[in-house]
């Protein structure tokens, strides 16, 4: 396999940036943001360079490796600090560094009023580094480092304004729920080592075919658990909504474009495991299906623009997971949707940020309205993203999402029909709530608070939005032209025979567009025809209530895990004090008590002492009697 010495720079540069910014402290306040952006940008440059190199090589010779040093080596457990850049990871590298850099630029302006901006950029760089390590690691353990690294970065960024207790809690929640997922990853690694004897992708791929299905299924399920944690999939989805506590660029980069898609990466990367473990694969599909509806439903009820977008992210990733679960045919489409989604969702988040920026950080869409006149650029870029996510041809989503829907139908049999209809339904709901967002934000009449005087954002902010908008328009077409992406990735996946088509692509698209149209129509009737209250109406259907409550996810977690856990803790703390330590103290008391009891023997009367001696002697004689007899 080709080796390269320059892979490490991809990670090293942003990492260096983070370190400098953190160590330099306030001294770096003046130039910190510049440095951060440069580091991310140069990492992007390295990525482009690597891509060019890669294009220059033959299809099979494209993957590049770099072994840095021997990381852990005990007995047969050998893990190198090694990087692997192949057709899959390069997509992510470019997405991460590319979108990342844009968002750095955006943040320069967006965070300009925050006197901790330097720290913010340090975290951003840290995140970029960790995320790159995640996608570049050549073994599950290296991936694990990046995996928790991004977790840490996301924790720091969600809690960037942790002086607000709620935000601090949100960050903690995110970290802990991620850890639950991470546990799955560690299990997967342990199983891998115990059964296959290695934890490197290559090694496991090599042995996969003569490893029992049971073991692979176990690994697959554990990887899925990890994915659900990181990608906010059912049942570990609850943290994503709260994660919106972070500054909007964070939501755009981490909780829309990159980190949350790590689960999809993990599953596609582990294709050799899932291909051999149908059960696990089925579970993946189910999780994806559930989540895409789950997210979509939540999206319909949210008034907070960021939470609405977060819900939609959840649901879109559901699509990707579902796609990835559909096996070799699905992987490429999952990745494609991931990329396109990276563009339009990031774009829309930045748009949302721009809106908030103009409406002094108001997030409630019911307080928006008629903004298209005041922030036209934002409106346009957001709108393009909107069209993309709806899947209107020829925008990006049209290519990627329809592919997934189509593949879902083609999954065959009842499974196919079910999945297909779920994805279709999802598309419809998506159309509904996105339209709702559009209408509430940009059209209708203004419902602002007095002091709000909306204005278009400065260049540094709308430029990235514009670029991303271009992406959301063109990326789908570019990636799918002549199955570009599919062919690009194909060497990584083992293809078995094509599935028979249940429905022709055109039919699927038609159906999809139909659903979308319905969704849009309903939204129009509900929000454009009639007045929108600037405060959320209380007399709404129970379903809406439930949806607003994020389908009770938090209540469930609290009732099932949190409160019992807290009670258990309290009980144990008391038991430790009362029972275990009590026993110890009891021994002491016992000694003390018996002591004061025995003191009684010492009556002070000479005659009783003599009696003692007498009895003692008598006992001796008695003993002797026994001995003699």
């Amino acid at each position, binding site marked *: 396999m080709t080796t390269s010495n320059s892979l490490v720079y991809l990670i090293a540069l942003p990492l260096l940036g983070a370190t400098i910014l953190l160590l330099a402290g306030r001294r770096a306040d003046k130039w910190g943001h510049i440095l951060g952006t440069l580091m991310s940008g140069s990492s992007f440059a390295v990525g482009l360079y690597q891509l060019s190199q890669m294009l220059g090589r033959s299809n099979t010779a494209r993957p590049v490796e770099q072994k840095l040093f021997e990381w852990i080596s005990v007995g047969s457990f050998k893990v190198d600090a090694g990087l692997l850049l192949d057709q899959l990871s390069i997509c992510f590298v470019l997405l991460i560094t590319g979108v990342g850099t844009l968002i750095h630029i955006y943040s320069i302006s967006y965070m300009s009023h925050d006197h901790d901006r330097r720290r913010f950029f340090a975290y951003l760089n840290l995140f970029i580094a960790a995320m790159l390590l995640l996608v570049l690691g050549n073994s599950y353990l290296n991936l694990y480092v990046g995996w928790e690294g991004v977790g840490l970065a996301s924790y720091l960024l969600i809690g960037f304004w942790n002086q607000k207790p709620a935000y601090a809690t949100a960050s903690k929640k995110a970290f802990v729920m991620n850890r639950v997922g991470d546990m799955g990853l560690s299990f997967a690694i342990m199983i891998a080592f115990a059964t296959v004897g290695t934890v490197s992708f290559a090694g496991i791929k090599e042995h996969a075919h003569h490893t029992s299905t049971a073991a692979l299924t176990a690994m697959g399920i554990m990887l899925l658990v990890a994915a659900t944690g990181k990608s906010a999939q059912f049942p570990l989805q609850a943290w994503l909504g709260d994660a919106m506590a972070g500054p909007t660029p964070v939501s755009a980069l981490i909780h829309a474009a990159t980190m949350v898609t790590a689960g999809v990466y993990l599953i596609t990367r582990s294709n050799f495991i899932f291909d051999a473990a149908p059960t696990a694969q089925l579970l993946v599909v189910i999780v994806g299906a559930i989540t895409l509806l789950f997210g979509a439903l939540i999206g319909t009820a949210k008034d907070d623009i960021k939470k609405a977008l977060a819900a939609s992210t959840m649901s879109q990733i559901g699509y990707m997971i579902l796609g990835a679960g559909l096996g070799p045919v699905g992987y490429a489409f999952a990745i494609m949707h991931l990329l396109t989604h990276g563009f339009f969702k990031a774009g829309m988040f930045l748009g949302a940020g721009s809106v908030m920026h103009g409406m002094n950080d108001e997030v409630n869409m019911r307080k928006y309205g008629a903004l298209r006149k005041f922030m036209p650029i934002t409106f346009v870029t957001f709108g393009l993203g909107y069209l993309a996510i709806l899947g209107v041809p020829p925008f990006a989503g049209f290519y990627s999402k329809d592919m997934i829907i189509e593949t879902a139908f083609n999954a065959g049999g009842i499974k196919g029909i079910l999945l297909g209809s779920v994805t279709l339904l999802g598309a419809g709901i998506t159309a509904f709530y996105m339209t709702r967002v559009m209408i509430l934000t940009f059209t209708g009449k203004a419902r602002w608070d007095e002091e709000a005087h909306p204005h278009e954002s400065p260049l540094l902010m709308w430029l990235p939005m514009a670029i991303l908008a271009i992406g959301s328009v063109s990326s789908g077409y570019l990636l799918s032209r002549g199955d570009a992406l599919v062919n690009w990735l194909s060497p990584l996946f083992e293809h078995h025979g094509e599935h028979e088509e249940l429905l022709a692509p055109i039919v699927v698209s038609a159906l999809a567009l139909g659903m979308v149209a319905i969704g849009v129509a309903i939204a129009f009737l509900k929000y454009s025809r009639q007045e929108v209250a600037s405060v959320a109406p209380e007399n709404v259907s129970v379903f809406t209530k439930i949806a607003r409550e994020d389908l009770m996810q938090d209540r469930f977690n609290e009732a099932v895990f949190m409160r019992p856990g807290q009670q258990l803790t309290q009980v144990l703390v008391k038991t430790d004090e009362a029972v275990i330590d009590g026993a110890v103290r009891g021994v002491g008391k016992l000694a003390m008590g018996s002591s004061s009891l025995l*003191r*009684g023997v*010492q*009556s*002070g*009367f*000479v*005659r009783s002492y*003599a*009696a003692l001696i*007498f009895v003692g*002697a008598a006992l001796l004689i008695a003993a002797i009697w026994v001995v003699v007899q």
Partner: protein
Amino acid sequence: MDAANYLYLSVLLFTIGAVGVVVRRNAIVVFMCVELMLNAANLAFVTFSRINGDLNGQVVAFFTMVVAACEVVVGLAIIVTIYRSRRSASVDDASLLKR
């Protein structure tokens, strides 16, 4: 007459002495009971000396008497001091030190 009887006698005397020590209150009496025990021992010695047919036992008896005499001196000295300071020879009154 069987020498064993003298042994029984000595054991009896010894026991009487020992019980006396335990039950009597007056220090002097208690002390006399101790003397009784010593003499019981003497009797045993002499008897055994008779049984074994050597003089050692009788020699011991003499030693014991001497020692007992010394004991009397010391003992009475102590008892008398106590009596003088407490105006009582009851051993039960002397129980400051306990527990």
